[in-house]
């Protein structure tokens, strides 16, 4: 197996996630796209770990999973607070600090 097939798969998933973050209006959908991005990073880390035989890549993949869990918890709490104040999760409505 080539290393590149995993790296290219991760790159495709990363770009799809970036598209989701840019084009989605719903706050929950933006968080889902961020999960796609973090997951593609994990594929990269594990692929490099398998390539070099070092275990550090897998340790950092575990750390990324933990950070992703924390990020989703806080992110959904923020979306919930936005929903409570605006009665909507449309991110275009949240323009209080717009200049």
């Amino acid at each position, binding site marked *: 197996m080539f290393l590149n097939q995993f790296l290219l798969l991760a790159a495709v998933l990363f770009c799809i996630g970036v598209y989701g973050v840019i084009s989605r209006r719903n706050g929950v*959908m933006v968080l889902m796209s961020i999960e796609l991005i973090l997951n593609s990073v994990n594929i990269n880390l594990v692929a490099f770990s398998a390539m070099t035989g070092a275990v550090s890549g897998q340790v950092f993949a575990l750390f990324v999973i933990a950070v992703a869990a924390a990020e989703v918890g806080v992110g959904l709490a923020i979306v919930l607070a936005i929903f409570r104040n605006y009665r909507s999760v449309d991110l275009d409505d949240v323009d209080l600090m717009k200049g």
Partner: protein
Amino acid sequence: MGGLLLAAAANADAGVYVAQNVAFGIIAALMVFSAFRVVTTDNVVHAAFYLVMVLAGAAAQFILLGAEFIAITQVLVYIGAIVVLFLFGIMLTKAPMSGEEKLSRDNWALGALTSVVLLALLGYVLVDGFGKDKLPADLLPTPTAAISDAIFGGYLIPFEVISLLLLAALIGAIVIARRD
């Protein structure tokens, strides 16, 4: 894109790793399709379940790479906890279930252009930098003991920092989301 990955998998290492490459191609095509549906579907609940497909596919790729512990953790944490959290978020925010409200912006074409340019750039750099590199032929599963030795040995302080981060995120989520 899935076809391109399939072709790349079919050409790689003919004869030795046929089964792994076929498995990689099928799973990769499924993952790319599901990820595309996550960012394009008009139904929030469908998006959550397509996200499950992507995450399960990533777990399968980790097993192909010999990282069993990461694959198990991926299933436990991502599919078991994070997706359930997403479903609760969808439920509590009363997001549109049947697609009567638009989920995407009108200027999505600009986002598509951005990500296609990014993909072209990343693809060029990856093919240029790692085009010849192959994974080792004797790719054995990583023993979980080696991972735990690394976490509780050289990476002990980052591990403690991650624990503190999880605690802070827990308390922060409660403080932000509670009614007062």
